């Protein structure tokens, strides 16, 4: 009876395979995947609207906290857009410092990803080792910027803190250690037969599909798409450093591992060049509180792919509109294509291979059943509508709120 073996399994929003909540509903026949439904929006926090109520300086710190792992990416991208609107020239030394922090962040993100990929295929040793080596980068970043994530190095017109020669010595030492460890991970990834068995031929995304679905970042570069914002549209100090864009033609998860590990080696090269070439000079220029009217789009190569920010200013102290398109939003559409004819056991590693960061992604709410009638609700009307909707289904929030308040008073 083949039909009785068809069923739908929900992976998420809460699931040990996912680091962040996202709804995947998989139709299975035995262990084979027949179809996939993706539902986004669980991490929506209203960041774009919140930016409109804050001054530029306050919005900068808010945008930085869109994501923890690629916080510098969002912060720099936003600041670059605003600096373009205001025609602000950032000094050279600040550009170099921004590049160094960007590459250190890329190193930390890719090492984290290697560990997560190991964990998803049951190889916890790889997780522990890569995260132990990641501590080198985290300590460097804490030394330079004052925090392990959410570095807060940027400000409008430059950077807030300097990289002293003492810091440079520590950075170079760290790069040497990490380069040796990364070479070992390349060896393991290419020679350990259980890893190769689990990762080869899994999550295949052909070049044609990658271009049609607009995948970005290492996900697309592993399918042979030769696109990298650092080379095609240079920002910060990338036009002055030499580096290769890594592409691979495996088109599967194994290719994505290779691309990310090789990008790590390129990142060490870039950091070393920047440390040597960094010119002396001021760290920042003075920027007025009111940015002139205008709009700008800025792009940035985050560890996960191309990050796009759009900022519109109307001449005041607060931005009029901020729009953030994170790389995972572009890549998550490709997961459906990758999992066609796949197996359930491959689903966690395929989702992990696009390096999902759903905090970055959820900038919009998707309406499951669009209504025919359109009307505009005020805030209090929306609140009443929500309360009535829940009461109609037997959920009364009043009693629950009272209970919680009493519990908190007892503590």
């Amino acid at each position, binding site marked *: 009876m083949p039909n009785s073996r068809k069923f739908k399994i929900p992976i998420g929003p809460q699931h040990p395979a996912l680091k962040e909540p996202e709804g995947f509903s998989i139709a299975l026949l035995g262990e084979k995947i027949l179809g996939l439904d993706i539902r986004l929006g669980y991490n929506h926090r209203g960041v774009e609207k919140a930016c409109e109520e804050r*001054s530029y300086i306050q919005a900068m710190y808010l945008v930085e906290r869109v994501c923890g792992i690629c916080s510098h990416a969002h912060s720099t991208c936003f600041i670059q857009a605003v600096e373009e609107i205001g025609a602000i020239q950032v000094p050279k030394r600040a550009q170099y410092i921004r590049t160094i922090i960007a590459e250190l962040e890329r190193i930390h993100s890719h090492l984290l990803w290697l560990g997560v990929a190991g964990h998803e295929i049951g190889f916890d040793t790889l997780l522990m080792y890569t995260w132990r080596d990641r501590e080198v980068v985290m300590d460097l970043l804490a030394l330079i910027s004052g*925090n392990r994530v959410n570095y807060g190095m940027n400000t409008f017109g430059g950077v807030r803190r300097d990289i002293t020669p003492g810091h440079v010595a520590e950075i170079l030492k760290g790069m040497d250690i990490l380069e040796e460890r990364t070479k070992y991970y390349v060896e393991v990834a290419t*020679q350990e037969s259980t890893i190769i068995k689990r990762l080869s031929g899994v999550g295949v995304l052909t070049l044609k599909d990658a271009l049609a679905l607009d995948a970005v970042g290492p996900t697309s570069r592993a399918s042979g798409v030769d696109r990298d914002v650092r080379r095609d549209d240079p920002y910060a100090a990338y036009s002055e450093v030499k580096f290769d864009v890594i592409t691979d033609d495996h088109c599967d998860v194994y290719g994505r591992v290779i691309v990310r590990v090789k990008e790590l080696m390129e990142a060490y090269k870039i950091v070393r060049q920047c440390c040597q070439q960094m010119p002396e000079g001021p760290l920042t220029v003075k920027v007025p509180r009111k940015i002139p009217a205008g709009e700008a789009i800025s792009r940035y190569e985050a560890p996960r792919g191309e990050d796009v920010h759009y900022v519109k200013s109307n001449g005041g102290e607060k931005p009029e509109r901020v729009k953030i398109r994170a790389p995972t939003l572009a890549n998550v559409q490709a997961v459906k294509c990758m999992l066609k004819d796949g197996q359930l056991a491959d689903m966690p590693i395929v989702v992990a291979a696009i390096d999902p960061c759903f905090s970055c992604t959820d900038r919009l709410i998707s309406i499951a059943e669009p209504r025919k009638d359109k009307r505009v609700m005020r805030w209090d009307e929306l609140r009443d509508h929500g309360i009535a909707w829940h009461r109609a289904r037997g959920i009364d929030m009043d009693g629950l709120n009272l209970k919680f308040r009493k519990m908190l008073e007892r*503590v």
Partner: protein
Amino acid sequence: MRPGKMAKEVLRNSYKKPATNLYPAEALDMPFNFRGKLNFIQEKCIGCKLCMRDCPSGAIVINKVADKKFQAVIDFSKCVYCAQCVEVCPKKALETTRDVELAQLDIKKLKVVFGDDKPNAPSNAAAPSTPPVA
């Protein structure tokens, strides 16, 4: 292609010291200039309220307690530890410390008053250009 490629490295780790710290038995050490808990130096504050204007989360409130004396009420549950207030203060009245062990069971204890208190000083005075609380 061989299984167990990591065996040599793994066995070497069996006699090396573990890389994890036995926190809280061993103390944590943050690097110099780490952005931890804030500290307010009352003698230097002139009450310009630039810090209040620039705080992304409305965590700091400056109140006047006497002539030329101000107190700062910082809500550490709202503070994001960005140190923008430290940077923008013209008199360097705010500074970061390396204190990171800030967890509390009672959220009221996270609202810290720095400086002398008037007997009935308001602790949540509204001020211009703080972002909305909602």
